[in-house]
């Protein structure tokens, strides 16, 4: 009993091929692993091996004929004594597979809606003034106190007390096992953190700044971000990547970049960029508890800013929920992180000319709280987005699209996205100022969206 040998697909895209050369002739004995033929495709000539022992009964195709489709019979090989009578060892003879037909194509299902938690009620809660830096430190300390699996690693986080002093005092409180100085090895320690996360620890990986995380972006995206999906839900990575993001002051192109849009692009990552100290604290605590990888973007200029922080034993802020910083009726200003600082200033100027702006702090960029933005735009009918990052494929671009899709009929003017300029950050003080998004630009954009004369 001979079995048919079919023209194999030797590459992911091969559809047809021809026999460039037979290495066997009819009557030959072949052993598993012997090369039967060379197969030529449009891209390469590849060898094709016998997969079991036997005798070549018949060659069905001659050398250098016209190309034939994958899975056409090319030879008949009979099994040797050892395998005859065990038909299961021969390739399934009558199977010809057309991939296009065998793959069922169904309608694309709906992406599941985000389940949003509400912010904690802060009625009857007292507040204390704290810097963002202190709030972040407290968040880490409280979570490390709460869960022994949480540890912090990064460059200069321990003995030096943090390059920006965010981890001040943590070494004394938790010791060298849990507050770990790394070598200058971003790619390596990020991968190591990801592995520790897969193995059930809860690492906080601090990047001295997010500019240096580019060394490690493969581990953040490909390893941390995608493994849950690729493992069919088995292997999650509860890790927080945090550190200052965006422009500091006068540190030029390689040290001044906003990565908000970069990470927000990636399904599998959560992305947070807080503005206030209270949100920094509450969101970092939520991020550390989250079973998914979270990119937590801080800002060096904000570290020293003070805000009121609730005096609660366990203050958390839900991930994925925007905050209406100020209600207003004339225009919606949407921002996040340091952008909020410019936005608040612009809103004060607008107030002086009688414009009542609603201000939304996104706080979390992925998952994005689209409802809050859409609801607001439906009320004000106008929108300006503000961020520090580059204009192309920005967060504002994405918001504009969402608003256009879901609130088109409510819009009274095209949305304007205020962003950093489309240039690497210059060093010169005057140029740097021009490159950054400015209060004047935001006010200008708002006026333009409101059709107000100069």
């Amino acid at each position, binding site marked *: 009993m001979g079995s048919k040998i079919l023209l194999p697909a030797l590459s992911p895209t091969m559809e047809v091929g021809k026999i460039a050369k037979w290495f066997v002739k009819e009557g030959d004995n072949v052993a598993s692993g012997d090369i039967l033929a060379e197969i030529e495709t449009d891209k390469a000539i590849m060898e094709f*091996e016998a997969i079991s022992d036997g005798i070549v009964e018949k060659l069905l195709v001659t050398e250098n004929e016209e190309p034939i489709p994958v899975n056409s019979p090319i030879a008949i090989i009979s099994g040797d004594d050892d395998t005859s009578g065990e038909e299961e060892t021969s390739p399934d003879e009558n199977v010809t597979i057309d991939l296009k037909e065998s793959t069922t194509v169904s309608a*694309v299902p709906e992406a599941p809606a985000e389940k949003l938690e509400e912010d904690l009620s802060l009625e009857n809660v007292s507040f204390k003034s704290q810097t963002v830096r202190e709030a972040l430190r407290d968040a880490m300390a409280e979570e490390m106190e709460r869960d022994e699996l949480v540890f912090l690693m990064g460059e200069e986080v321990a003995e030096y007390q943090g390059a920006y002093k965010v981890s001040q005092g943590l070494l004394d409180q938790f010791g060298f096992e849990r507050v770990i100085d790394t070598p200058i090895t971003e790619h390596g320690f990020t991968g*190591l953190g*990801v*592995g*520790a996360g897969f*193995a059930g620890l809860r690492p906080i990986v601090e990047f001295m700044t997010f500019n240096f995380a580019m060394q490690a972006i493969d581990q953040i995206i490909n390893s941390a971000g995608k493994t849950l999906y690729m493992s*069919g839900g088995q292997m999650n990575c509860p890790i927080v990547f945090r550190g200052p993001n965006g422009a500091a002051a006068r540190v030029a192109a390689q040290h001044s970049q906003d990565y908000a849009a970069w990470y927000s692009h990636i399904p599998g990552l959560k992305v947070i960029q807080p503005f206030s100290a209270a949100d920094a604290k509450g969101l970092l605590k939520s991020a550390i508890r989250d079973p998914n990888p979270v990119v937590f973007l801080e800002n060096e200029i904000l570290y020293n800013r003070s805000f009121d922080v609730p005096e609660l034993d366990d203050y958390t802020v839900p991930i994925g929920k925007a905050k209406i910083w100020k209600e207003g009726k004339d225009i919606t200003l949407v921002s996040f992180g340091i952008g909020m600082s410019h936005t608040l200033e612009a809103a004060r100027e607008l107030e002086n000319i009688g414009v009542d702006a609603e201000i939304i702090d996104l706080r979390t960029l992925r998952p994005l709280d689209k409802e809050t933005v859409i609801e607001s735009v439906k009320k004000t009918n106008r929108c300006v987005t503000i961020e520090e990052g580059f204009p192309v494929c920005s967060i504002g671009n994405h918001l504009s699209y969402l608003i256009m899709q879901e609130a088109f009929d409510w819009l009274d003017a095209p949305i304007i996205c205020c962003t950093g300029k489309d240039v690497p950050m210059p060093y010169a003080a005057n140029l740097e100022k021009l490159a950054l998004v400015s209060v004047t630009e935001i006010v200008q954009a708002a006026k333009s969206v409101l059709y107000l004369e100069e």
Partner: protein
Amino acid sequence: MMKKSVNSKPKESRDELLKLYREMLLIRRFEEKSGQLYGMGLIGGFCHLYIGQEAVVVGLEAIAEDGDKRITAYRDHGHMLACGMDPNGVMAELTGREGGFSKGKGGSMHMFSKEKNFFGGHGIVGAQVPIGAGIAFADKYRGNKNVTFTYFGDGAANQGQIYETFNMASLWKIPVIFVIENNQYAMGTSIKRGSSTPDLYTRGLAFGIKGEMVDGMDVLAVSKAGKKAADICRKGQGPYILEMKTYRYRGHSMSDPAKYRTREEVQQVRKQQDPIDSFRNKMLKWKIASEDEFKNIDRDIKKIINEASDFAQKSPEPDARELYTDVYL
């Protein structure tokens, strides 16, 4: 210096020896079947076969203890079978079906088993190495005596993140065994053309990591070296490097024009060093098992493989609703 391969009758029991043989043969036959299903269009994309390298993973798994972990790159089918993952689930993942270890969402290069402590299955050359060190770090953090086998290739050995990892692993005495599977080629680049120094086991010396070269075609030599490395790591004196000299018979992946080496070179290794044939011949010589017993084993393995192949073809494609699951926990 390569350790001598083991020629005198070993101390392992008959059952242990036969198990080594079975496991190697299981991988060989599984991979042959995978190649066949690929040729039929049932497996798509990249598919890297482990044929020729079976002794490496089987020898090391033989000395692994409960709770030890393993991680490797994309040439991963052998590692999964050797750590006890069900061939049906592995094969069904290759065909992209619901019954696969990743429900069909990972494919040949991305499979995982929490239960068997198999941490993948990674497609980016070298990326699994710091991750492996991190998994071992977690054992150290928890005070366990377990080790993590972190496999990578001769080509991967030139990636920068491996040296970042060597430094940290040595600095922090992480219980990780770096297993370099030196099969002499990184796709079409022979080790001579890609590495400034050929002795990869010495690559940790600058970081204070000891290493040794092992005949990766000899399953008993692999086990012996693995036991020593694991003992060192369990005592907190790791990490350790094992360079396994081995050979891949098939192309880099299924689509490989194979013009970077001669047919004779491949045939010669196959005839003279095949890990399965040579081990079988030794066992016959030592009178550990008879021809008939080997035939029975062959038959059992064929059955397992055919079942896996059937399962992998019958298992349905994942439900469309699976598209949006497992993005977040």
